[in-house]
């Protein structure tokens, strides 16, 4: 079985500051790793994913995440956040078509 732990339930940050949302996972098999974003009253949207290859993956809107196999982590980072980044962020692992999600981190960007 797989499990995902998002270490921070809420992260408040000022606009243009850097941010890191932390995610650790547990699995006895190799899994694929994902970050999803959820805006209020909406479904989840894929932010980025790690399947194989380079351990650093990037999204089109400036987020990046690094897969660390030894620490079983997949932390999400952005060097400078915007007000529009305010949302719920979910880390997930996928194995054999089944995704297991963490409980989410609420990112609040303040002006």
């Amino acid at each position, binding site marked *: 079985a797989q499990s*995902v732990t*998002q270490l921070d339930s809420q992260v408040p940050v000022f606009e243009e500051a850097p941010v890191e949302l932390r995610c650790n996972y547990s699995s006895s098999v190799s899994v*694929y790793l994902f970050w*999803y974003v959820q805006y209020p*009253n*909406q*479904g*989840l*949207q*894929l932010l980025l*994913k790690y*399947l194989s290859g380079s351990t650093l993956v990037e999204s089109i809107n400036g987020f990046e995440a690094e897969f660390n196999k030894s620490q079983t982590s997949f932390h999400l980072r952005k060097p400078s956040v915007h007000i529009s980044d305010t949302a719920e962020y*979910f880390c*997930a692992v*996928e194995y*054999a*078509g*089944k*995704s*297991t*999600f*963490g*409980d*989410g981190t609420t990112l609040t960007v303040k002006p």
Partner: protein
Amino acid sequence: DAGVTQSPTHLIKTRGQQVTLRCSPKSGHDTVSWYQQALGQGPQFIFQYYEEEERQRGNFPDRFSGHQFPNYSSELNVNALLLGDSALYLCASSPKGGNGGTEAFFGQGTRLTVV
């Protein structure tokens, strides 16, 4: 492409009743997964349908059942509703059986309230 569409968007039911939620997958997708997202929590996997059969199931009781039709659309049925079934129900579709890290596209969900 309309993406993944779910209906209805909101629903209020009485404890003990039955409910059916519907999902149309993104064009070209053949796999549908259902998730329950309680307030303040991440989505929990209910089950996945592929080729009209339930392929995987999470830790949900038999009160939760589903169906996939030949056009790949899907229904989630919940019998004998409990107050604890109140949640956002998300449908996700993916191509090629949903394996191997393929991206899942989520609908906006159905908000079910049991009173």
